[in-house]
């Protein structure tokens, strides 16, 4: 049995397929195809949540995505528990576990409900006014307490084990909304052969045809027609039909974000299936067929469980076969609620009375209701609902006052009319226009290539909607370049008609009353709150919204905006359009972070770049560090060595024997063309024209402002070919910088740039025995000092494969950098390693590399420079071509500030106690006894323990540093002041003799 309120003769679900589920620990049975809402209602459960602020008991207001109340937690396991799931959207599966939120200790008895009794304290703006003083208490006391007490739902605290996917899609016509209008538009567009995507947020297409029993199209029941049309569309190659898919954001140039809920409705989703799929659709034309949303009546205690929209009751009955009560009252200002009463009555449910606020409505539904024997009252209002955890009665009064009458009910269906869903239109930057006659905001001025059709366009009636939609679908396809439609327009044989309705508070909830007549259920905003906001001086609807939080909950005011606006307008004494509508923002309904992140998590969070030699380093037990996206071997610990010991050993090995270092990550650019040298002259401070092929030079690149941008060794392979190296981190931006100048400032130069960073693996072999290690493996290159002096490059072979062999050094030792095609990198490394073993060589990592270069005073751009350092500041004036007429940065270097005295200059720093290693980034002062804040004259840029020097070494930028040689400066640290002596930048082999062997 799937619930006492299930009516076997009603609905479209097959009674045969039951699904068991639990809510707050209680087991129930539903039917496959149910939503959690319909299954609970079938079991007579209306109370499903507590409200946000007052903790008032709440039930279902709607049967769809606009639901503000019935937010529950759905839990598959500890990691997969999703808070704030709308029970009206969550489809039932066997074994579903759900629980209510925002209540303690239980849903029926919630301590927080004291807020409801104390509610005079919690009026609009309460938090703003109350927690002003003392100011310091806000952060430490008020905010944490309020946040803990408020909040909707609890986030899972474990990593999300589900996966999410994404897809870019392109189409001619994107149709959003799969009701009658959307289907008609999609058919018309699809029949032209245009590429069409049709998306609807529901599991089932049809929109309001799911409950409009009066609709007949092409001789069929409306819902059956919709299913037939969808089957036809699905069978077409040019059409993609997406159900359970919400268009949440409409962005520039018809770029629309959709989330497809792929597996939330499945009992045990296959591992292959993502939970959700993000679609990013670029459409030539968009057809908005988003329908309209029914509004509730604003009256006292209109939030009691059992009180819901009339259309919701119809969906529950006509689609799910569920009666929302046994003795149902109806409160309306609109015809559509009559249809709900009639459907329920015909299904055997007692309709206690229809209360219609209108004085003299006429029409077929009214006649039919009367004919069915339903009591109909005109010109009357429901001024109060009785009951607490469930509505028990409605109190009726003539709308202009008079005797009250209380009618017992177990549910109230209400309808104040229908609000066109202009959310996506508004997100597209379209401007809505107010129709004074129908009191609706409808699409006015379009900003993008889209069109609204049907109810969201304010079009009334099924036939008119389908006509409009079919024509719009065909036109959209044509505008997107497709042919004319060949199909036939669906013919509407019968339909229902819904007349207008009302906006704002109903009688009994007027300005003279202090009752709780809810406008916004999710944020607990009442009619009174909105009036109060106006009384306290809020004039703009945007201010009213923020003061009251009306429309600011996750449902984005789908049911509340128009009522709130009308009440504010009435209080202000202004017409509605003058008060204005608040802006609709994405997302239309909440979107999970998972869907937005989609594939970009775990190994795909960001590319992890590894060199060709990485597997060798990994096998050797190297510890890696992240350098940008690269993994670089940091140090190679042996046995029980810690980092310190490993680095000391590596540094000593390089200077004693030799070391091998993977330098593959260095950026490399091949500059080719007859004007290559001219181009280099312009991009680097150094002179290049006279550099002979086969020789290298250390180059400095500046920005136009004169500050160091990058550096690296450049080898001239041929008169028209340079092999340029850049820093690891600088590779992409240096390439961009060079391309920028080449393409836009120096396009007359015949030269081209190619990134060869990844073409070549680079093995640095450094140390006194480096040549002995390399030479046996090299072919075709004279390795003698005369033939291959420091700063030269040759092409030849190593281990039988091509190499660009550089003689260069970043250690101050005799050194080489062996470039080989990347796929050979590891094999050549292994061959060099084998040779190295004969000579006591060590593999060294980036930490030892840093220490070794610092011992020689070689700078690292980005560590010893920070974008405000000139070549002169860094002691590299020698690398600036004094006779050059132009290079990038030449003018910047002569700016007044850059030539001023007292600039920070890079110098060496020696601690008085050689054992003390300074902290990088530590500030430097001249007088440690001065008052705080002290005048800081510089900072430490690089600092290491140097085993080779037997002491700590450091580089720092110090104001007027080079004039302070020998001076004592001070580095104040938390544990005391460290004395340092300003020294030269070279700590090891000052004469540089070792470079040449």
């Amino acid at each position, binding site marked *: 049995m799937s619930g006492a309120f299930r009516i076997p003769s009603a609905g479209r679900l097959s009674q045969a397929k039951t699904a068991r589920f639990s809510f707050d620990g209680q087991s129930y049975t539903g039917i496959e195809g149910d939503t959690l809402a319909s299954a609970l209602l079938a079991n007579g459960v209306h109370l499903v949540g507590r409200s946000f602020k007052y903790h008032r008991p709440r039930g279902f207001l709607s049967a769809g995505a606009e639901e503000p109340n019935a937010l529950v937690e759905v839990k598959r396991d500890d990691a997969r528990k999703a808070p704030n799931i709308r029970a009206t959207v969550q489809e039932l599966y066997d074994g579903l576990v759900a629980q209510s939120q925002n209540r303690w200790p239980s849903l029926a008895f919630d301590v927080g409900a004291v807020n409801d009794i104390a509610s005079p304290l919690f009026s609009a703006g309460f938090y703003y006014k109350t927690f002003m003083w003392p100011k310091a208490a806000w952060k430490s006391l008020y905010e944490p307490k309020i946040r803990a007490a408020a909040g909707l739902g609890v986030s899972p605290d474990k990593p999300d084990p589900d996966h999410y996917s994404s897809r870019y899609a*392109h189409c001619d016509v994107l149709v959003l909304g799969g009701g009658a209008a959307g289907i008609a538009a999609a058919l018309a567009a699809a029949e032209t052969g245009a590429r069409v995507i049709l998306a609807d947020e529901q599991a089932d297409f049809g929109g309001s045809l799911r409950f409009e029993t009066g609709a007949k199209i092409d001789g069929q029941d409306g819902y059956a027609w919709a299913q037939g049309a969808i089957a036809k569309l699905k069978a077409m190659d040019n059409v993609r039909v997406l159900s359970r898919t919400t268009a949440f954001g409409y962005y520039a140039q018809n770029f629309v974000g959709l989330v497809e809920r792929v597996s939330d409705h499945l009992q045990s989703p296959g591992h292959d299936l993502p939970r959700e799929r993000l679609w990013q659709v670029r459409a030539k034309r968009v057809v908005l067929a988003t329908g309209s949303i029914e509004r509730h009546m604003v009256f006292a205690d209109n939030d009691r469980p059992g009180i819901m929209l009339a259309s919701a009751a119809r969906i529950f009955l006509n689609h799910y076969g569920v009666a929302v009560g046994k003795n149902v009252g109806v409160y309306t200002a609109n015809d559509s609620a009559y249809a709900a009463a009639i459907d329920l009555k015909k299904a055997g449910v007692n309709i206690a009375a229809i209360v219609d606020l209108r004085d003299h409505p006429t029409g077929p539904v009214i006649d039919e209701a009367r004919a069915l024997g339903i009591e109909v009252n005109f010109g009357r209002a429901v001024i109060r609902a009785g009951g607490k955890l469930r509505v028990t009665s409605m109190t009726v009064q003539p709308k202009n006052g008079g005797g009250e009458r209380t009618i017992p009910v177990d549910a109230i269906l209400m309808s104040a009319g229908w609000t066109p869903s202009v959310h996506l239109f508004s997100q597209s930057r379209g401007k809505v226009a107010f129709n004074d006659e129908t009191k609706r905001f409808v699409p006015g001025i379009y900003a993008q290539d889209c069109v609204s059709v049907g109810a969201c366009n304010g079009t009334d009636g099924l036939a008119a909607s389908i006509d409009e939609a079919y024509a719009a679908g065909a036109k959209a396809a044509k505008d997107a370049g497709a042919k004319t439609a060949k199909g036939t327009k669906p013919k509407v044989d019968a339909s229902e008609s819904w007349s207008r309705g009302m906006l704002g508070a109903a009688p009994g909830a007027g300005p003279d009353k202090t009752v709780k007549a809810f406008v916004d259920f999710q944020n607990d905003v009442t009619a009174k709150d909105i009036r109060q906001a106006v009384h306290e001086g809020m004039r703009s609807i945007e201010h009213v919204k923020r003061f009251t939080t009306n429309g600011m909950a996750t449902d984005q005011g789908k049911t509340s905006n128009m009522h709130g606006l009308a009440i504010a307008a009435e209080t202000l004494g202004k017409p509605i359009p003058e008060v204005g509508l608040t802006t609709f923002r994405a997302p239309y309904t909440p979107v999970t972070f998972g869907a937005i992140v989609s594939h970009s998590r775990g190994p795909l969070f960001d590319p992890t770049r590894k060199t060709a030699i990485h597997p060798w380093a990994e096998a050797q037990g190297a510890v890696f560090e992240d350098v940008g996206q690269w993994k670089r071997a940091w140090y190679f610990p042996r046995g029980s060595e810690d980092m310190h010991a490993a680095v000391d050993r590596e540094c000593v090995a390089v200077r004693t024997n030799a070391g091998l270092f993977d330098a593959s990550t260095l950026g490399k650019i091949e500059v080719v063309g007859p004007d290559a040298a001219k181009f280099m002259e312009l991009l680097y401070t150094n002179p290049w024209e006279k550099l002979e092929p086969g020789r290298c030079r250390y180059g400095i690149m500046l920005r136009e402002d004169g500050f160091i941008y990058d550096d690296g060794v450049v080898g001239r392979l041929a008169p028209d070919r340079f092999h340029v190296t850049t820093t690891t981190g600088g590779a992409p931006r240096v390439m961009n910088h060079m391309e920028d100048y080449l393409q836009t400032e120096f396009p007359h130069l015949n030269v081209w740039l190619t990134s060869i960073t990844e073409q070549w693996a680079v093995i640095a072999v450094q140390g006194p025995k480096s040549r002995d290690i390399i030479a046996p493996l090299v072919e075709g290159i004279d390795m003698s000092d005369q033939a291959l002096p420091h700063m030269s490059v040759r092409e030849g072979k190593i281990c039988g494969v091509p190499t660009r062999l550089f003689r260069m050094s970043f250690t101050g030792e005799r050194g080489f950098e062996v470039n080989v095609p990347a796929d050979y990198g590891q094999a050549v490394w292994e061959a060099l390693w084998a040779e190295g073993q004969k000579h006591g060589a060590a593999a060294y990592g980036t930490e030892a590399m840093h220490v070794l270069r610092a011992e020689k005073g070689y700078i690292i751009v980005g560590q010893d420079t920070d974008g405000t350092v000139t070549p002169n500041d860094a002691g590299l004036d020698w690398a600036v071509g004094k006779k050059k007429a132009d290079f990038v940065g030449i003018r910047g270097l002569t700016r007044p500030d850059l030539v001023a005295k007292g600039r920070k200059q890079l110098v060496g720093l020696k601690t008085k106690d050689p054992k003390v290693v300074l902290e990088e980034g530590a500030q430097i002062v001249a007088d440690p006894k001065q008052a705080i804040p002290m005048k800081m004259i510089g900072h430490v840029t690089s600092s290491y323990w140097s085993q080779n020097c037997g002491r700590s070494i450091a580089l720092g930028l110090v104001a007027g540093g080079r004039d302070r040689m020998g001076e004592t400066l001070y580095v104040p640290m938390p544990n005391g002041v460290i004395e340092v002596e300003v020294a030269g930048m070279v700590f090891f082999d000052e004469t540089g003799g070792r470079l040449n062997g």
Partner: protein
Amino acid sequence: MAKAAAAKAAAKTSASAASAERRPAQAGRSVSAKNVRVEVLPPAERMSLRAPEASVAALSKALGLTLPKSPKSSAVKAGRTALWLGPDEWFVIDEAGKDLLADCAKVSALHSAVGISHRNVAFTVAGPAAAAAINAGCPQDLSLEAFPVGAASRTILGKCEIVLLRTAADAFRVECWRSFSDYVFTFLSEAASDAAA
């Protein structure tokens, strides 16, 4: 000095013919989903060719195929494919192992030819869901109308740059830089299983 002489001698005598073993990235990796298969392709000769309009004819002749002049297009002949990447830029692939740089070295007309055989790794993505798999991370329209067979473009896949070539209605060649190949393969594998679903 004696040491240097010894080194010189060593260089002359020990020139070994033994070739270093080539270890291509992602070698042998593949993944099959219902409607799409992703597979790493064997190494190929690759060249980045840059040249002004005036040199195109001479280079085409030397390479034995007509360098394409239209955006987003390519030309194929005898295992050699030239992809238009920019108005003066072609990416040339030779799957038969022929030396592209040697062919261009004969050309005196202005150009830049740079070997990038090892810079890139290539994958094939094939099957009815191939385009859908690539569209998991590539924002371009990959319909046959917008991206027909032979279409070629540098573009984006997820957080990485790729070169994309459509080799058949249901097959693509995806080229990326070597160090991004693990990311690209992993991305395409995930995307393939989703595209198949």
